[in-house]
């Protein structure tokens, strides 16, 4: 399963706001092979979007800095490459789509022009060829009457259609990597199903590797080959979709899954995770989940490494496997 040279190899990515003691995103590592879909799942503030933005070189102009780490993608380190190298890469070999298509589209420009612009930014081709490519892309994302839609403005489209346009734009230059940050969160469920379907099919057709950032474990089960569960800036568990869902090891993964009501049947009272996430300017030094964890002990005041538990499965918990933990052993760990 492990390709000798993955498409994307992220190692030790840390992101910090100047002046804080602990990094916001801490030592994040993962690999992605061509054609694979990795889902990064976690709640607000876990650093999943920051990770994506850092990979695309989009932290410029924010108080956030990549402190350490490398991200090798087709021979280029995304984290240290010069801005013009990244500009040449973005929208071409690596593309990104966002949650809210309306704020990512230019409201004053016809959608055909916007897609053509994305093509012409990277390829020296005539206007009508770019427009033809735009029409072709709208067809590929299954927009009905694509030829006519080219001349419409974003406000004339529904939310689902706008997200299709974003996908068309992102895929117009056949990228090797597509990062999608909560692409369906703003959409209704029936429209979400259409978009997920589309992304799965396009992924299979084009071989584009995808990183999908989501908070929805249902979307993860549906889309991912591999999963990384993030909590407060760290990956706490990573593995194949089957490993993470069928053999969840980290207490946070278990808590997150227990917190979700089931569509399919009665489960009684929801088993929750107590408390709330640590504040970004006051991250604990040790295990960042310890203050909320039912399995915490004094040992958890030291940060647990993301240690392998079988092939491809890794867990950052001192007490994994939890079967060996005796209840009553728990100690309060200061937040």
């Amino acid at each position, binding site marked *: 399963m492990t390709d000798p040279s993955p498409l994307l190899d992220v190692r030790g990515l840390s992101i910090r706001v100047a002046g804080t003691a602990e990094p916001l995103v801490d030592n994040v590592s993962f690999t992605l092979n061509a054609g694979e879909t990795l889902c990064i799942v976690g*709640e*607000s503030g876990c650093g999943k979007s920051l990770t994506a933005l850092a990979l695309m070189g989009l932290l410029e102009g924010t108080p956030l800095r990549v402190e350490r780490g490398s991200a090798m993608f087709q021979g280029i380190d995304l984290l240290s490459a010069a801005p013009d190298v990244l500009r040449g890469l973005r929208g071409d070999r690596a593309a990104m789509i966002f949650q809210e298509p309306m704020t990512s589209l230019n409201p004053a420009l016809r959608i055909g022009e916007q897609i053509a612009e994305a093509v012409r930014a990277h390829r020296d081709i005539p206007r009508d060829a770019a427009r033809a490519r735009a029409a072709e892309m709208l067809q590929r994302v299954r927009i*009905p009457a694509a030829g006519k839609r080219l001349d419409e403005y974003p406000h004339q489209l529904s939310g*689902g*259609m706008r997200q299709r346009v974003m996908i068309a734009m992102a895929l117009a230059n056949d990228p090797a990597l597509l990062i999608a940050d909560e692409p369906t969160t703003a959409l*209704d*469920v*029936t*429209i*979400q*199903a*259409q978009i*997920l*379907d589309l992304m799965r099919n396009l992924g299979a057709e084009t071989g584009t590797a995808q990183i999908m950032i989501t*908070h*929805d*474990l*249902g*979307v*993860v*089960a*549906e889309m991912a080959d591999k999963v990384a569960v993030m909590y407060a800036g760290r990956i706490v568990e990573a593995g194949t*979709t*089957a490993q993470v*869902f*069928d*053999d*969840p*090891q980290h*207490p946070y993964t*278990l*808590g*997150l*899954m*227990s*917190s*979700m*009501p*089931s*569509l*399919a*049947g*009665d*489960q009684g*009272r*929801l*088993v*929750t*995770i*107590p*408390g*709330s996430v640590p504040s970004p300017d006051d991250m604990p030094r040790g295990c960042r989940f310890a203050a909320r964890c*039912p*399995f915490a002990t004094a040992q958890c005041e030291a940060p647990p490494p993301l240690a392998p538990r079988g092939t491809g499965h890794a867990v950052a918990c001192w007490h994994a496997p*939890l*079967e060996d*933990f005796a*209840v*009553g052993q*728990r100690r309060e760990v200061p937040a």
Partner: protein
Amino acid sequence: MTQTILSARGLVRRFITGKPLFGAPTVVQAVNDVSLEVRQGETLAIVGESGCGKSTLARLLTRLIDPTEGSVIYGDRDIASLSGTELRALRREMQFIFQDPFSSLNPRMTVGALIEEPLRIHRLGTAPERRAKVAGLLRKVGLRPEHADRYPHEFSGGQRQRIGIARALATGPKIVVGDEPVSALDVSIQAQVVNILEDLKEELGLTLIIIAHDLAVIRHISDRVAVMYLGEIVELGDAADLFATPAHPYTEALLSAIPIPATGARKARTMLEGDPPNPIAPPPGCRFHTRCPYAQAKCRDERPELRTPSPDRQVACHFAEQLSLTGVNAAMAARPDAAQRRFALYSHARAAMAGAQTDKTKPTTEE
């Protein structure tokens, strides 16, 4: 055997969305001829996608807005005819929890003042009594009495939603309407708030009307579910039955679209192509016929009434009896035994942790 606490009859609400200088205004029929009964002590959920009229319906039921046609009967009176003191008395008994805990709390008032405000408006109790009541309410929603002196911005989203709940409960309402009360919250915080709502409902004997688009949350908290499409109720029934055996094609499509977080689960299916039609010009006949995979000629011409083909189930579909539709069942979300055991470990340790914490501090609910 169960009593009806609130009933809507033929509710219609139209909004004027565009008024040209000349010519006819554009009218949206947000709620079209909705009748339903809310039972004493139940949790009734109203589900549907954006623009289906579910929030408008909730506002009509509590008379936050007036219906264009139809009536809402509470007790023995039509609440549309109430005014002045009678309306104020009604407000005491029906309260609302809003979706966005950031915009629904006045940032310049302390939490204590916010929760006390409904008590002051309704002139309930003396000042010291009200303060004691605020402290009690804060404890009920899992916050601490000393939080009363703080301002909303000092709290997280989940805590603010608890404040919103405490405020809604201050006057001792009989009916609480929640418009997407947990959908702005993260999963782990959502679960805490869902548990609080359920506990309080039990403890105070409330009737809950919950508007939501998250069907898993709905399945968990509600006794009965009403499914809306383009301003109409297309199906209404017992939550467990309706999810297991939907009778309306739209309900089936909604259920099929939801990704289930388990590896052995069925893949979500795209049963509906395209977007919902424009509510300004809804299709004739059955409003769902343009997207319905089972539509026949009759559906284009004839509007199906909300019928009662079997006890405890209402459905607005000409062919409800002929169709055999697929729902969701427990087997779809089944987990392997090893995972099941680990979840049991978590649950056990979690309970032990809650026990240890209650010993140390007084408040019962987790923060």
